[in-house]
């Protein structure tokens, strides 16, 4: 399969910067998509850096735990942060825009990938976003978003709600 890239909307795009100075590397997602990335950008992930140093992959690094859509987003992030001449202010602005368009379920996927690939800055920022998105939400919203089944009985639920009634003040409506 030819290396290709996707933007966060899932459309195929030509990779913005064909790195000339640094060698390219192929990252392979769980669903078999391949992405080209410069070694300097990939090296911002501690996990990929270790794999490059071990050189066990022969130029292609399989990431069997990250799907293509998520990997495309992570690569967009890494490319920006490895860009020559991008100031901290540029990167901060980029992060803000990059993350603000994502729904919480997408943020969760990116957080998981950020943790797995050991990209601390990304993981931390995404966690903050998730926290801001969920702090005023209802219990039902959290269960739905994180796909959790309640294992409380109806009586237990009623009891907990009554015990901590004050914590149910000011909760956003689930329709938001």
């Amino acid at each position: 399969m030819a290396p290709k890239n996707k933007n966060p909307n899932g459309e195929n795009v030509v990779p913005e910067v064909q790195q000339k100075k640094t060698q390219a590397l192929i990252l392979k997602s769980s669903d078999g998509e391949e992405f080209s990335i410069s070694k300097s950008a990939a090296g911002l992930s501690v996990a990929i850096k270790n794999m490059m140093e071990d050189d066990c992959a022969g130029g292609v690094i399989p990431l069997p735990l990250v799907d293509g859509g998520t990997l495309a987003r992570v690569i967009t992030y890494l490319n920006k942060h490895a860009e020559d001449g991008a100031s901290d202010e540029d990167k901060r602005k980029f992060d803000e825009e990059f993350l603000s368009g994502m729904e919480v379920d997408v943020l969760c996927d990116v957080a998981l990938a950020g943790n797995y690939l050991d990209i601390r800055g990304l993981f931390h920022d995404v966690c903050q976003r998730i926290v801001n998105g969920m702090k005023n939400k209802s219990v039902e919203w959290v269960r739905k978003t994180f796909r959790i089944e309640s294992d409380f009985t109806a009586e237990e639920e009623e009891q907990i709600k009554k015990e901590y009634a004050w914590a149910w003040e000011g909760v956003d409506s689930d329709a938001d």
Partner: protein
Amino acid sequence: MSFRSSSVTGSITWNDDMLIEILLWLPTKSLTRFKLVSKHWLSLISAPQFSRLHTLRHLKLQPSLILHMHASQFFYFHPLVDGAKLIPYHFTIPNPKILTSCNGLLLLQSDYPQKDYYVYNPTTKQSKKFSLTNNDHKYTSVLGLNLAFDPSKSPHYKIVCVRGAERSPSSALQYCQIKVYDSNTQSWKLCLEPFIAYITTQFSHGVHWNNAIHWENHPFHHLYFDLDKNVIRSLPYAQTPCPARGEGTACHFHLQESNGHLHHLMIMSELGDKSIAVLELTADYLQWSLKYHDRLGWFQGMFRILNFTSGDSEEMHTLVFHVPGKMTAYKFLDKSFKQFVDLTNQTFYQEDALQFDSRDVHQFCESLAPI
């Protein structure tokens, strides 16, 4: 146990470490609600180690308030929330009385079936019973119990017990002693004996600030007990802001800790024209600086000050009043009044009556701090 599985086979799932990373950033109120998500979330949020880390990460607390009505009826309310309601609150111990509140913990007394004392976290409802030492024949009466807890300095709390010796009924002074319970050593220690205090000193209403307990005493000097040095000292006298015609009288005093400062609230009446002053003690204990002095001239009729809330920013500085039938918030920034709790639909409502005062209102700082 994972809490999310992706549709894509082989995808990574959340492990507890990562989930905890997110939960640690959530405010206490959200976490308290999310205990209901699943039993696994309940166990993560309730773990003592998690509570300690969360407490350290959330040291700036925005206090809500807890109101004690007669007959063990308690209500939670948040003075800065629009459309705040009185939400019934139930303690897990019988017939409690709130003695004091300090950075997320309460000191409770339960008078029957027997007299018991508790340190209580109203957020988690965790409680711990403690008993007073009773081996002193000279200092027989307990004048006040106060709590000192500052999670930014230590996870342990202290209980300050002031006892008084018998005195002749005509005496305005009294011999006193102070014993301190330390939750770290789980024991009482005699810290100061004897000292002499006016019987008007309100030892049962101490205010914790700066690792010291402060007590009002009108019209004399307020006192404070320094827990670092085990000494008692008097606070500088707070000057009543000068009334224009020199005929003003201060008719209400109130000491209160709010957002890391000790405040002194005064209501002055000058020929029926009322004004409010808020003074703040400088960190060196040398003087009170005047923060606000606002006229409430048109604010007619009966009212009581319940609480001064100073948030992070000036615009949040709010005074909570009780007037018959409602609670009202006064914002210093734009000098505006806003009714925020309607009491007329409550079962306890009495027409044209003030039904509680500042002593019935305590800070409820949402905190997971373990006891």
